[in-house]
């Protein structure tokens, strides 16, 4: 199962990169960025998985004494937790700038923004 998740994560990352590089509409580029983000999170969580174990929450089913042999790795999960929230903030920022670009040029086509091109 973790192999499937890892493969899917990699392909989703590639799809996001492809969308970032080939699409012409800025909204589509931002969608590609969020797809890329999701793929990265899947890869990180899949790397934390340990075969046949449960979530890192100690309760009646997971004994405190034997927790080392029963739970999956909590550290990448904690990192992904913060990464998702940061991803929302960054996406909102990108969308605001897309809106400002649209206000300047009245278009969202990336090919019409050539101000820095000599």
């Amino acid at each position: 199962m973790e192999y499937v998740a890892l493969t899917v994560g990699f392909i989703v990352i590639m799809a996001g990169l492809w969308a970032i590089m080939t699409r012409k509409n800025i909204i589509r580029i931002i969608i590609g960025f969020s797809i890329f983000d999701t793929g990265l999170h899947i890869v990180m969580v899949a790397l934390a998985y340990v075969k046949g174990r449960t979530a890192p929450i100690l309760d009646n089913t997971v004994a405190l004494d034997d927790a080392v042999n029963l739970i999956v790795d909590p550290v990448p999960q904690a990192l992904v937790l913060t990464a998702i929230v940061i991803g929302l903030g960054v996406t909102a920022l990108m969308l605001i700038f897309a809106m400002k670009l649209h206000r300047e040029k009245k278009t969202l086509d990336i090919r019409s923004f050539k101000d820095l091109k000599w």
Partner: protein
Amino acid sequence: MSYLLIISILLGIIMLAMAGIAIYHKSQVVAIIAAGALGLFASVMYLLLSAPDVAMTEAAIGSGLSTIIFFYVLNRIRTTDEKEEQQLKK
């Protein structure tokens, strides 16, 4: 073949299809909704990988709030475009 493996393969196929729709569909609205659905299926995948915390966060933020802000921006851009068209007609 355990049933978890079959479920995860099905989920993976659906997620790849969602990514394809999000990149290549003509309508931007459908593309945004497909990106949100990708997040939703990813949260089910996190649940299979025994990460319930991450699954909750992804379901609330990745597929809920980010879709909503995409739609706000899309609505804003569409209304300004409509206003300009009306001005051009005048």
